[in-house]
C-alpha cells in the first residue's frame, strides 16, 4: 500500500501531472470511439470513487480533501470527468448517425411538446433535487471559520479562493502582471471572441465532434488542461511555500526545493558568451526582447503561411486575432516546458520597471 502511495505521489509531480493531462486529452480526442463507451465513462467514475474512498484512510490525504472548502473541488473532479465523457459520447453518437446518412438526434426530436407539463415538471424536479442536496450538504458539513483575521500572521500556504487557484498556479511561471492581470483579461477576451472567430457553420445546436474537431480540441485543452487540472493541482498538491506535495505526502513546512532558476540573459551573456552582464538593461535583455517580439510579431504571419487554408477561410483579421489569442494561451505551456527543461526563470527580466516575462 505504501508503495502505491509513493508511486501516486511521484506521478502527481506538476511536470508529470501536466504532461499526463495533455496526453489524456490527446487520447480522448484520438480514441474517442473507445472513450465514449459506457464502460469507460462509468469505469472512470468508479476508479475515482475507489481512489478517493481508499485515499480517505490516509491521514495526509484526508487533511486536504475533507477541508470544507475543498469538498466542492472533489465534486468538480467527478462532474468535469463525467460531463466531458458524456458530451464526447453524445458527439460520437451523433457523428455515427450523420455518417449513416441520418440527422443528429436533436433534429429527429424537433417536434414540439408543451412546456406545461413537459418542461415545468422537469424544472420542478431538478429544483427539488438541488435543494435537497444543498440541505444535506449544509447539515452535514459546517462552513469553515478559522481564527479571527490577523494581518500580522500570514498562514503558509496562503491560497486564493479555489476557483482562482489556476491563476495562482500561473504565478509559478509568470510575473503577477501577466499571471494576475493580463492573462486573466485575455481569457475573458478570448472566450468572448469565440463566436466571432469560429466561422464554422456546422455543429450549431447539436453535439458533434467530427464537424468541429479543432474548435472542440482547443476548448477542451483550455477548459480541462489549463483551467480545471491546474485548479486541482493548486488545491490539492501545493503546500507550504507553494511547494509541491503528493496527495499522500505530509505537508512539511521545512521541505526544501532547490531554487536553480536562471534568467535568459544569464544563460546567454554569462554561460554562452562568457562575459559579465551588461550594465544597461536594454543590451542585457536584447536577446529576450527579440525572442518575445518574434513570438508575438513574427510567429503569427508564419502561422498564416503554414495554415494557408485557415487563413483564407477566416480572413486576415479573424486569423490574426485567433493566432494571437492561441499563442497567448500556449505561452503558459511554453513557459512551463522551458522552466522544466532549462530551469529558465524569465525570458525578459527588467526588474527596473517591474517588467518580467
Amino acid at each position, binding site marked *: 500500500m505504501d508503495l502505491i502511495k509513493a508511486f501516486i505521489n511521484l506521478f502527481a509531480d506538476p511536470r508529470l501531472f501536466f504532461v499526463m493531462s495533455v496526453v489524456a486529452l490527446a487520447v480522448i480526442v484520438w480514441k474517442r470511439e473507445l472513450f465514449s463507451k459506457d464502460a469507460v465513462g462509468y469505469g472512470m467514475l468508479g476508479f475515482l470513487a475507489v481512489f478517493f474512498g481508499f485515499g480517505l484512510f490516509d491521514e495526509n490525504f484526508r487533511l486536504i480533501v475533507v477541508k470544507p472548502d475543498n469538498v466542492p473541488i472533489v465534486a468538480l473532479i467527478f462532474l468535469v470527468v463525467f460531463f466531458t465523457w458524456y458530451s464526447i459520447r453524445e458527439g460520437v453518437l451523433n457523428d455515427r448517425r450523420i455518417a449513416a446518412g441520418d440527422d443528429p438526434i436533436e433534429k429527429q426530436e424537433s417536434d414540439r411538446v408543451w412546456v406545461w407539463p413537459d418542461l415545468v415538471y422537469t424544472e420542478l424536479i431538478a*429544483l427539488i433535487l438541488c435543494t435537497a442536496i444543498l440541505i444535506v450538504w449544509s447539515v452535514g458539513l459546517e462552513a469553515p471559520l478559522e481564527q479571527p483575521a490577523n494581518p500580522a500572521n500570514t498562514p503558509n500556504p496562503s491560497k486564493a479562493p479555489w476557483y482562482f487557484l489556476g491563476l495562482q498556479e500561473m504565478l509559478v511561471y509568470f510575473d503577477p502582471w501577466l499571471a494576475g492581470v493580463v492573462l486573466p483579461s485575455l481569457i475573458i477576451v478570448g472566450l468572448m471572441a469565440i463566436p466571432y472567430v469560429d466561422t464554422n457553420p456546422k455543429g*450549431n445546436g447539436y453535439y458533434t465532434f467530427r464537424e468541429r474537431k479543432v474548435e472542440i480540441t482547443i476548448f477542451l485543452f483550455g477548459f480541462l488542461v489549463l483551467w480545471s487540472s491546474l485548479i486541482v493541482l493548486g488545491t490539492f498538491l501545493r503546500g507550504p511555500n507553494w511547494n509541491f506535495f503528493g496527495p499522500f505526502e505530509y505537508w512539511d513546512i521545512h521541505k526544501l526545493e532547490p531554487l536553480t532558476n536562471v534568467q535568459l540573459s544569464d544563460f546567454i551573456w554569462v554561460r554562452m558568451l562568457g562575459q559579465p552582464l551588461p550594465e544597461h538593461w536594454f543590451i542585457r535583455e536584447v536577446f529576450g526582447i527579440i525572442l518575445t517580439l518574434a513570438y508575438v510579431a513574427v510567429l503569427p504571419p508564419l502561422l498564416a503561411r503554414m495554415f494557408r487554408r485557415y487563413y483564407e477561410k477566416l480572413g486576415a483579421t479573424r486569423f490574426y486575432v485567433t493566432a494571437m489569442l492561441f499563442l497567448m494561451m500556449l505561452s503558459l505551456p511554453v513557459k512551463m516546458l522551458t522552466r522544466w527543461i532549462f530551469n529558465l526563470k524569465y525570458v525578459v527580466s527588467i526588474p527596473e520597471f517591474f517588467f518580467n516575462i
Partner: protein
Amino acid sequence: MAQTETVQPKEALLVRCWNWLTETQIWTSVFRHAAPINDRNRVLVMLSNVFLHLHPVRLKKHGVRLRYTWCMGGLSFFLFLVLTFTGLLLMFYYRPTLEYAYSDIVGLREHVPLGIMREMHRWGAHAMVITVWLHMFRVFMTGSYKPPREFNWNIGVIMLVLTLLLSFTGYLLPWDQLAIWAITVGSNMARATPFLGHEGPGAALLALGDVQLIHAADDARFALLGGTFVGEGALLRFYVLHCVGLPLVIGFLMAVHFWRVRKDGGISGPL
C-alpha cells in the same frame, strides 16, 4: 335491445369542496383559467403567469431533454435565487465592521438554533460557480454560441466573471484568517496592473517631474481595497459590492440573457 340507463355517480365531498373553492371570487381573481390539463389552458398558463412566461408555450422535444441541457443554466439561476434569499437572512445578523464582523459570524454559528443559512449560502455559492462553468461547457459543446446567439454568449461570459467576483467579494466577509489572506493573495495581483498598479510595468512612466502619479495609495489595488491593505475599507467595499452592486448588475444581465434566449429563437437546436 335492452335500454341501458347511465347513472351519474354522486360527487365525493372533496370534489365538491374543490369545485366550491375554485369558483370563489378570490380564487378566480388569482387564477384566470382552469388547470392546465387541456391545450387551451396550457397556452393560457404560460401567457398569464409572470414567472412562467419566461418560457415559450411549446418547445422542441430535444430542448426538454436532460441529455441536451444538463439543466445547468436553470440550476445556476435557481442557485442565484437561493443565494439571494439566504444572503438576505444573513444580512439580518451581520455587521460589516472590524469590531463585529467576526463575532457576528461566531454568533450565527453558536447561538442560532439549527442555523444552516451560512452553510446554504457558502455551499450554494461554490455550487453556483460549478454549475455556471458546466453551463458554459454545455453551450460550447453543442455549438450554441454560433449565430444568431453570439451576443448572448458574451452576456454569459460577463455573468461568469460576475459570478466569480460575487464569490470573491463574499469570501472576505467572515473576516477570519481564511478570508483576509485569500483576498490579500487575490488582490495583490492588482498592484502589478500595467500602468495602474504601483508595482506594474509602466507605472514609473506616469510621473510629473519627480512626482509619481501611481503609488501604493492611489493605484488599482487601492481602488479595489479602499486602502493599502485588506482592512476596514476593504471590508465595507466588498460588503456593498457583494450585497448590492454586483447582484444588481448580474440581475440586470440575467434579464437580458433570458430575453435574448427567447428572441434568438428559443433553446438552440439544429437549424
